[in-house]
């Protein structure tokens, strides 16, 4: 829904007040309720669907392929498609590039290693249907739950092929669960001096700036970047707000992981 | 209600006049013996060149990793700046079963002439503050540059042949690379005769501050860049070479085509050998009729101007000249006057034989001036 100038100004005031009054009554560190479905695509190794309360829906499928890891350096490929946005738009390409970089640098490559010569290569396809707010947090949750539900074929040949070009063979129907720690990406909105987690679309429209924070292996890591959420209200923020944002993620991320892990 | 209407002449600032009536402004300038750029009729703009230090072979201490530029040039002509970078690739030539000697093939004439010359694949980009598909001008420029390089016979095809060396590793683990043209030994002749690779050259030409026709400036920049181009030596590893030889000796090489990994030597280069006598530089000219009507009113003694006389302007520059000139000449000529390209567009003005002759003469002088710059720059 497009807000008028007056409505926006009112909303900005209330979000910047202390404590922030969010339009849906959430606390500053409270996420929107989401529904997560996993492992529903029979043709994929892992899949998930995340639906947020505002109707934003994100589907992720993980497929694997055996490759020679000396030839192909990248073992994770991420493809992002957002309904209503062109494939070459800044939003789509920016999200795809951020995700591939985070996943390819922070996923443990040894988890995908089959033999000395061969590895699994993961193809992660992200489809966002009807997005309303900046979809990165939601995509990240979906990728997390998809990778954690991924089943890879079980290797029955030897894992030491002495670098001979012997193709690995797999068990006919047994699978092994992919055991890997997946980084989570959070978006935050900074309004005045307040920091709000998981901003809804109307909150994004009046935020002074956005921040992307990554949580991996129990701590906040790079990339940490400012993120444009709108063009009207964007302004500089105080360094203190950046620190507050990181502190907030340090506080909420373990709870989010616990909630996602319970699925 | 019968107020007399007073007619007052409107006068404009020269800048404004040049904007709203370029042809009038042009004629006014010409009648003073000057051009809008304040140059005289047959004066060229100065050209500054450098190799920009972009090429990987130009410096010893630069980190070569990821730098695949073989030759480069930065050319400044007036305000216009052109950055040309030449990159390369390797392509395997298809050789038919019966091996034809290069020399005998070259003796044939006519239609085959072009097959003796190498090409370059240019992509011109003109910055004008827009994004999107290439403009007509960019596409025409690229195509014209490509055609002119091919037809001028600047690059002999032989200069693009890859003399593939072989890297051998001895028992101590130290490797050495042998090139067929360095050592006259019987090295790897089996490999050499059956497989042939050639370099492919690409040019990326970026133009900033467009101020007049670009073909000539781009061409000159491309020539300078080609003169600095260094091709890396290339080799295959001994192990892969050995592996393939038995296969090819069975005479099945025509059907089984393994792909060799050709690796380029990061420290050894050879300059690209151009056909020196075909090196030529471009210049352009405009012919414009002097319109006696547009002259500034003169006080005192009248100057005699022939009715409908035309003048030749060298090196078209600026909006006023480009907009009001319809007859242009574009010449690519070498120092010695060998013509490589000649294009006349006869618009409104009369391109007389005298003007053509004059332009050819000026183009030759310009070429010798520009070619002197290249040899100075090389030092």
């Amino acid at each position, binding site marked *: 829904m497009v807000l008028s100038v007056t409505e926006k100004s009112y909303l900005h005031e209330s979000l910047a007040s202390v404590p922030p009054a969010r339009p849906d009554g959430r606390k500053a560190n409270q996420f929107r309720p989401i529904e997560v479905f996993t492992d529903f695509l029979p043709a994929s190794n892992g899949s998930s669907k995340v639906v947020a309360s505002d109707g934003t829906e994100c589907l992720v499928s993980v497929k694997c392929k055996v490759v020679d890891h000396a030839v192909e350096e990248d073992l994770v490929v991420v493809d992002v498609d957002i309904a209503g946005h062109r494939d070459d738009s800044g939003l789509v390409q920016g999200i795809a590039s951020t995700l591939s970089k985070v996943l390819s640098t922070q996923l443990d490559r040894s988890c995908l290693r089959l033999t000395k010569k061969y590895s699994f290569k993961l193809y992660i396809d992200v489809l966002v249907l009807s997005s309303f707010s900046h979809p990165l947090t939601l995509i990240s949750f979906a990728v997390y739950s998809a990778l954690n539900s991924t089943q890879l074929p079980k290797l029955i040949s030897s894992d030491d092929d002495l670098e001979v070009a012997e193709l690995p063979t797999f068990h006919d129907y047994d699978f092994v669960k992919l055991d890997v720690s997946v980084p989570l990406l959070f978006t935050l909105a900074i309004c005045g001096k307040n920091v709000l987690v998981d901003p809804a679309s109307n909150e994004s429209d009046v935020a002074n700036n956005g921040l992307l924070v990554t949580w991996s292996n129990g701590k906040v890591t790079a990339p940490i970047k400012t993120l444009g959420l709108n*063009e009207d209200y964007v302004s*500089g923020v105080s360094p203190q707000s950046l620190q507050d944002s990181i502190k907030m993620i340090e506080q909420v991320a373990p709870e989010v992981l616990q909630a996602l892990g319970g699925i | 209600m019968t107020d007399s209407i007073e007619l007052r002449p409107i006068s404009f600032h020269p800048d404004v006049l040049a904007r709203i009536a370029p042809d009038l402004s042009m004629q006014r300038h010409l009648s003073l013996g000057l051009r809008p750029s304040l140059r005289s009729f047959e004066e060229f703009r100065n050209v500054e060149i450098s190799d920009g230090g*972009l090429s990987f072979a130009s410096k010893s201490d630069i980190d070569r990793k990821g730098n695949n530029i073989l030759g480069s040039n930065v050319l400044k002509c007036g305000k216009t700046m052109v950055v040309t970078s030449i990159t390369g690739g390797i392509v395997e030539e298809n050789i038919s079963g019966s091996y034809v000697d290069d020399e005998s093939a070259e003796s044939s004439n006519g239609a085959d002439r072009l097959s003796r010359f190498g090409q370059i694949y240019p992509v011109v980009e003109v910055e004008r503050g827009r994004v999107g598909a290439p403009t007509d001008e960019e596409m025409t420029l690229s195509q014209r540059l490509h055609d002119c390089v091919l037809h001028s016979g600047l690059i002999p095809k032989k200069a693009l042949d890859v003399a593939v060396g072989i890297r051998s590793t001895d028992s101590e683990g130290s490797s050495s690379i042998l090139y067929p043209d360095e050592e006259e030994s019987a090295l790897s002749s089996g490999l050499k005769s059956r497989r042939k690779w050639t370099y492919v050259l690409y040019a990326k030409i970026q133009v900033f501050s467009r101020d007049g026709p670009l073909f000539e400036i781009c061409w000159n920049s491309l020539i300078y860049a080609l003169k600095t181009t260094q091709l890396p030596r290339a080799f295959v590893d001994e192990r892969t070479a050995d592996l393939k030889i038995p296969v090819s000796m069975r005479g099945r090489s025509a059907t089984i085509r393994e792909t060799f990994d050709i690796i380029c030597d990061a420290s050894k280069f050879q300059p690209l050998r151009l056909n020196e006598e075909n090196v030529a530089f471009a210049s352009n000219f405009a012919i414009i009729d002097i319109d006696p009507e547009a002259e500034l009113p003169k006080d005192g003694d009248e100057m005699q101007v022939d009715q409908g006389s035309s003048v030749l302007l060298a090196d078209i520059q600026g909006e006023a000249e480009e907009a009001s000139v319809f007859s242009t000449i574009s010449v690519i000529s070498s120092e010695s006057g060998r013509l490589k390209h000649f294009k006349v567009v006869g618009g409104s003005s009369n391109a007389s034989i005298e003007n053509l002759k004059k332009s050819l003469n000026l183009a030759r002088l310009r070429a010798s001036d520009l070619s002197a710059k290249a040899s100075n720059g090389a030092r």
Partner: protein
Amino acid sequence: MNITDRRRILGPSNAKPLIFEKPESSEQEVQQPQEKSNVENESMYIKNGLVSNANGSSYLELKNGELSEQCTILLTSVYGPRPSRGAFSSKASLSVQFKEVTIEKIPSGELKEICNFLSNIFSAVINLERYPKSGIDIFLSLVQNPTTSDEGNLQPIIAACVNGITLALADAGIEIFDTVSAGTYKRNVVAFSKNGTEVVGLWKDKEDDTENNILNVIESCKESYLKNRKVIIEYLIRSRDADI
């Protein structure tokens, strides 16, 4: 479907790119980062107004130390404010395009990320309300990039972009709220305004071993920001005096 590019002359389709031999000595690479962190003798050459058909432009040449031949060359041109067609807009729309003129090392996705990041910074800095119904387009051309191809080492380039755009906007006479500049520290880039009290952009794309406290990182970037900003302002004042 055959989707070849018919608008450019592409050359033979079976051509392979040149593959260079991997340098055997990797010791040199280990030493390099130490040199780079030495910000003290970094020099910046600035020249405004080189691109004549743009409304404003800046040329930046950054060198690490006097002797080093490696320099980053960035040409920024600003087109606008120029009328934009279509629906009415009460403020100017801003676009940032980044292009590598010579060697193409940066993957296209990352170029887009840099553009998004920069346009976010400058949406906050340019007085866009001043220019309704118009567009301001910024074009960055990276002419020379000495950083190695081991991706990720983008922070000196991003900082140069921020400084270059500020200079070009000043040259174009477009209203900005403050002379924004960026400072780098290790793998962080922070763009500041208002004398370092406000952060308009933060970019950290790789973990470094040092600080976990973001405030200390910002403080370190601020030092190099103040230095860069001083150079920019001095240049602008000097060029203004030269004009008079």
